[in-house]
């Protein structure tokens, strides 16, 4: 098996910088990528008209850099994830013991043209690249709890 190259930097740095990053600055990375882990899975009905579905809101109740300064880390202990109207997950922001590299395929055709994405065309040799190194994650390790007036199980 020939060795598969793993490039330490992305060929075309993803530039989502057009969207400002609403997460606390500690979670910012150059590419904007972040990690969120939760128990279970998110299921939602497909909506054909849109490219994405908003499933909830992340709240950092203790995050207040204006009041507590950027160096404050106590806010990391509490994060809420409101799903739909009736459920809430409590979690925290954790520094990863070992950071994660986010790796994706970099595809290059034989004539040297760069093709991004999942093209499976012939004559393509596989190369990988590290898009980002992420050092923190938002983790919701517990099951959702019901909140608000109407208590009903929806997930």
């Amino acid at each position, binding site marked *: 098996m020939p060795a598969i190259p793993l490039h330490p930097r992305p060929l075309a740095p993803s530039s989502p910088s057009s969207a400002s990053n609403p997460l606390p600055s500690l979670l910012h990375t150059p590419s904007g990528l972040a990690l969120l882990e939760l128990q279970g899975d998110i299921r939602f009905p497909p909506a054909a008209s849109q490219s994405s579905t908003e499933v909830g809101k*992340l709240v950092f109740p203790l995050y207040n850099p204006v009041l507590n300064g950027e160096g404050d880390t106590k806010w990391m202990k509490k994060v809420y994830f409101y799903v739909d109207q009736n459920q809430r997950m409590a979690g925290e922001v954790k520094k990863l013991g070992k950071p994660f590299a986010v790796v994706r395929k970099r595809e290059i055709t034989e004539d040297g043209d760069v093709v991004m994405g999942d093209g499976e065309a012939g004559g393509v040799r596989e190369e990988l690249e590290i898009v980002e190194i992420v050092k923190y994650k938002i983790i919701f390790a517990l099951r959702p709890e019901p*909140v608000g007036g109407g208590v009903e199980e929806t997930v």
Partner: protein
Amino acid sequence: MATQQKDGGVPFAVTHELQSFRLLELPPEIVELLEAPNPPQLSIKSLPPAASGAANPKPAYAVLCTPNKSFQIRQVQTSNSVFVTQPSYEAHGNEIPTPATCAIASCSTTLELYPADASAVAHLGDVLPVYDIVGGEVDTTENGRSKGDVLADIPLSNAQCEQGWNEIIAFELSRSSYRPSVNILRQVWSSINAAALAENIKLDSQFLGYDLAELVAEESYPAPLTMAILRHLAKSEQDTKGQWSCLDRRRTVSFVGRILLQARQTSSEYRVADFIEEWKDSLPEAWRSEAQLKVIEGTYELPSSTTIRAKSIPAATTETATAKPTAAKGKWHERFAKTRKK
């Protein structure tokens, strides 16, 4: 209270076309390597798939290689969903789009790295044909594979492969690659020693290695093999790429002692006194006094008070390589059991 916070939060969306990302857990030394101004290219190598019907197929595994280290990659199943998110704008109906965070990939497994410090020697021993000359006739099988082809299939870093290549004294000859038998090492060394004597070359000071190899080649020993031996015996600080050579005296004396013993492996009786005498005779005149048993400590045994033989070399390296995947399986089961208890 809760409702207010909910309104002020960061909208979280999931894209309908998730991308394929893999999460690779990085040990500190790789993080350091990657965050340096000019990070080296890494690579993922694996053993070639075993030919179907192979008697004893090795377990398949992949390794991540830095220029000089290698790490075994293990896939770990996560019971949780891990999303990779990026900033986006979410708009609903006619509302003004608001900054949001959007999951663009979901990973159910992560990749963990464990140092793989196996030696390339065992792998090379398996794949390289032995080159021997018996009764003046070359006795070997061409494999038609260059050094590059062979090393590409060894799941270790370039530096580890090079080290193993040098340790086993492998060489390339007419588009094939080989490892020498002890017998041919003994023959070529004797020819090197004779040529050095004839040309008045001091082997432990700088000399033109290729010129010596040419002289040895007159006795039909391939020059690349002679060069491989000179490289194997060179002083460690020596630039082995150039045409100059300079042997490490202590290393060479030990090497000669060991190959003499191993070449005699088949015949039963080898008197210590005879061995030492033959050893001294196989060295440049000025080195004779250094042929002492302590130089080859650990590589010989004394079956009786007057005889000596080479210690058989245990094939330990292959065992450690196969033991690791088993450990990985055990760990996976532990994790599985944990999630089931929940």
